[in-house]
């Protein structure tokens, strides 16, 4: 059963997902907490034309991906910083589809031989290189360090943007760095899960853990562990079925998420039946009106 893990390229994949899980897990928590899921999806998908260009012109893939991701982060990020939810999502959608169209046009009409569109979009075990391991390790370290240093600010701004500004917490710099880190993590996940399914490691694990925790630190640790577990599981499935690892990890993560949500619902129902409902504390804010 463990046979696939003896193959060298699967072992490399194993190291890749383990190294990734630190950065992707910690950052995933911030993505969910700060409502950046669409941005994360957009920035990952936007790397696609960069990858195609790199493959076609023969330079390092992550370099091309990073260049496009940075452009995306700069344009969308500036709008996001203005706290302008509507326009931000429209622009994200536009840049995303535009990037995909550019990538497909490049791949099918300019460099038809140099690229394997499927492996770029959905990841592939065969393309993971030593370089990807180094990138994943460095990005994970950067994310963990940044989260330790800037976490309090990201938390304060997410909790109450106006309030924290009046408390003297300036959002601009730290938030820009958060968007930049999402772009970096998206680039580092590309070889394993591909540019369309990055949310499988960047969003779903954090969302799976969310209903069970009440503190940030536990959330981050549990998410990292879950990301690593699902990565290893998905990799094994991928090696067994010869399917792209991005797809197997996404399906596995989706199944675990569904199980988590259902278990939570059952758990809550039992508690409600047994004792005072947990949500009782939440009702006053909804009741509204003057006293």
């Amino acid at each position, binding site marked *: 059963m463990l046979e696939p893990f003896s193959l060298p390229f699967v072992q490399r994949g194993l190291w890749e997902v383990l190294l990734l899980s630190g950065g992707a897990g910690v950052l995933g928590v911030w993505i969910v*907490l700060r409502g950046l899921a669409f941005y994360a999806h957009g920035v990952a998908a936007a790397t696609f034309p960069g990858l195609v260009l790199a493959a076609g012109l023969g330079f390092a893939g992550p370099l091309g991906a990073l260049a496009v991701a940075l452009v995306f982060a700069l344009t969308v990020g500036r709008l996001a910083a203005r706290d302008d939810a509507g326009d931000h999502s429209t622009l994200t959608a536009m840049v995303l589809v535009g990037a995909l169209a550019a990538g497909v046009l490049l791949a099918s009409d300019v460099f038809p031989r140099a690229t394997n569109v499927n492996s770029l979009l959905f990841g592939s075990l065969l393309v993971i290189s030593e370089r990807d391991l180094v990138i994943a390790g460095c990005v994970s370290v950067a994310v963990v360090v940044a989260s*330790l*240093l*800037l976490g*309090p*600010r990201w*938390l*304060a701004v*997410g*909790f*109450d943007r*106006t*309030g*924290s*500004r*009046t*408390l*003297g*917490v*300036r959002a601009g*710099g*730290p938030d820009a760095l958060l968007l930049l880190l999402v772009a970096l993590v998206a680039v580092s996940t590309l070889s394993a899960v591909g540019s369309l399914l990055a949310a499988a490691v960047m969003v779903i694990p954090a969302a799976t853990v969310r209903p069970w*925790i*009440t*503190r*940030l630190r536990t*959330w981050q640790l549990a998410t990292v562990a879950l990301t690593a577990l699902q990565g290893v599981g998905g990799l094994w499935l991928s090696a067994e079925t010869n399917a792209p690892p991005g797809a197997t990890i996404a399906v596995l993560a989706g199944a675990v998420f569904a199980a988590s949500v259902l278990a939570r619902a059952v758990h809550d129902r039992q508690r409600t039946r047994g004792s005072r409902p*947990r949500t009782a*504390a*939440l009702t*006053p*804010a*909804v*009741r*509204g*009106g*003057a*006293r």
Partner: protein
Amino acid sequence: MTDVLLDLDGVGAGYDETLALRDVSFRAAAGDRIAVLGPNGGGKTTLFRVVLGELTARTGTLRVEGDVAIVPQTERSRLDFPVSAQDVVLMGTIAGRPWWRGPRRADRDAAREALAAVGLADRADATFGELSGGQRQRVLVARALVRRARVLLLDEPYRGLDTTSAGRLDELIAELAGEGRTLLIATHDVGQARAWDQVLCLNGRQVAFGPPATTLTAETLAGTYGGELLRVGHDGELAVVAEHHCG
């Protein structure tokens, strides 16, 4: 008056060419509890944003002594945040230290003191969303206190509170004012407003300002909440404004 913390003179502000709020002129001394009355869209939020420095005044002048802090309403999203009461109060200390440094012992002590000051020392580790509405209000007050803000803006703090919690909030507000702070309290509750030192009535502009006993007349309330209903003459309204202009 020596200890004026807030001084507005002819302030007007808005989001585009038309001003959402104009002609606001009043002074608030240390220890004043000021009720801000007005209908929805009457300019309460605009006034708060101007005092906070979020929005620049288009007309008039504004002077604020010391720091200003807002105690917002607890929105649904905040209830879901994975933070303890202590974590929320610690947010007030971030600006006081360089970005690479986490909270130190002094910050934690200050947060604990602020929680004790609002009577929640024993709930420091409780999850914010699981506190009662009144307790959440007090945690947010503590977050403002830890900044040593002298002017506090409270946005409808009584909304959704039961009588006991509201009574406790009354005491806290009196205590904070007694320590030499100025409190601006946005409210819909005219009865509540009568208990405080000053009343500011807004309806797109300043309708009246002054002590509740003389300010909260039928005419003023009609001018604040829609004069048409009570058929108050245009002159009557103007008279009220003139009378209490320099409160």
